[in-house]
């Protein structure tokens, strides 16, 4: 029995090693979190009942920047996706709607903490913005986007090291 278990374990390990070596491009080198916020100086109930409260620290952060300052913030949706070494990936923060999509792809490490990423923002199924942002952990890219129901959408893109936690990989 012990021998059988050992052989099974070795076979599994071997498979894992072989799989890992087949395409290094699929290595997950980080996690990208995309959040869509709604900022308004009017009545926040215009966003409808399916929105989420925004933590105070996030609201404070957003409001510190004059261009992103609103009296009220809500979260419309979020998505957390792995960043592959050489493959692109898509975030769908208002899934299953494709109204707001974000494509991203790693480009190069500028330094240990600084990574250049290709980021594309798609709205209403049109490519609206493409940029090669230099991302560091804990320093999001905030895009002040389109108007919606009397307010404006702010799309936050944040890169963190490590893999997404307990997310079904797409």
């Amino acid at each position: 029995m012990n021998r059988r278990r050992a052989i099974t374990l070795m076979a599994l390990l071997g498979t894992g090693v072989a799989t890992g070596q087949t395409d290094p491009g699929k290595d997950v080198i980080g996690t990208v979190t995309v959040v869509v916020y709604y900022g308004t100086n009017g009545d926040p109930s215009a966003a409808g009942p399916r929105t989420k409260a925004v933590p105070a620290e996030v609201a404070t952060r957003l409001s510190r920047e004059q261009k992103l300052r609103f009296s009220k913030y809500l979260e419309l949706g979020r998505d957390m996706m792995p960043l592959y070494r050489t493959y692109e990936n898509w975030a769908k923060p208002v899934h299953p709607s494709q109204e707001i999509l974000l494509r991203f792809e790693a480009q190069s490490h500028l330094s240990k903490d600084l990574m250049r990423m290709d980021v594309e923002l798609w709205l209403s199924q049109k490519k609206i913005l493409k940029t090669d942002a230099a991302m560091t952990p804990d320093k999001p890219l905030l895009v002040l986007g389109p108007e919606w129901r009397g307010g404006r959408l702010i799309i936050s893109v944040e890169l963190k090291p490590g893999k997404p936690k307990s997310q079904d990989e797409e």
Partner: protein
Amino acid sequence: MPDEEMLALWVEDELTGESAATVNAWAVAQPEWLARREQARQIKGLLRAHLPAAEEPPYADFFNSRISREIGREAVSVEPATSVKVTASFWRFFLPATAVAGMALCFWAGTRVVPTPSSSPLPPVANAPAPMPVLYTPEQGVTAAFFNSSPAHAEVIVLDGVAAIPDSFEVPETASVEEPAPATAVIDPLPR
């Protein structure tokens, strides 16, 4: 039978003169090859009539300038760092003693102001500001402006001229949270 290359050229109507005549004579009894040539003529005619061989890319000036920018950026990233060299001692061999003394004094004073490589190493790359990103907005009328926001500790891109998301768009159920009646964070718009 003509060789592969000659047949290929004949199918494409690129054979001339005696070679063309030879293959034509051979092809009289080759209905499959005649059909192949006819098919090539038809498809070629159709594609050439409707697909351009050359088409200026949109935003042609921006197309070129973005290439130049990327090339310039690559060049900067591979340039070796230049170092400041102390050369004062070199000149001592060429100047009169008094001038040398004066120079030495001035140089000593100068070292109090100008950092030398040993005392002031180049800042680590991680602390250097990231290069300005390229912004591309394919939709007409849309512009983007980038800046680093120290107050928000974030990079910010402001889009202008983007079409509004239709009011009919509803936040999907899956984007919602279980807690009922979410409270909003109310922020005083005026900083104290």
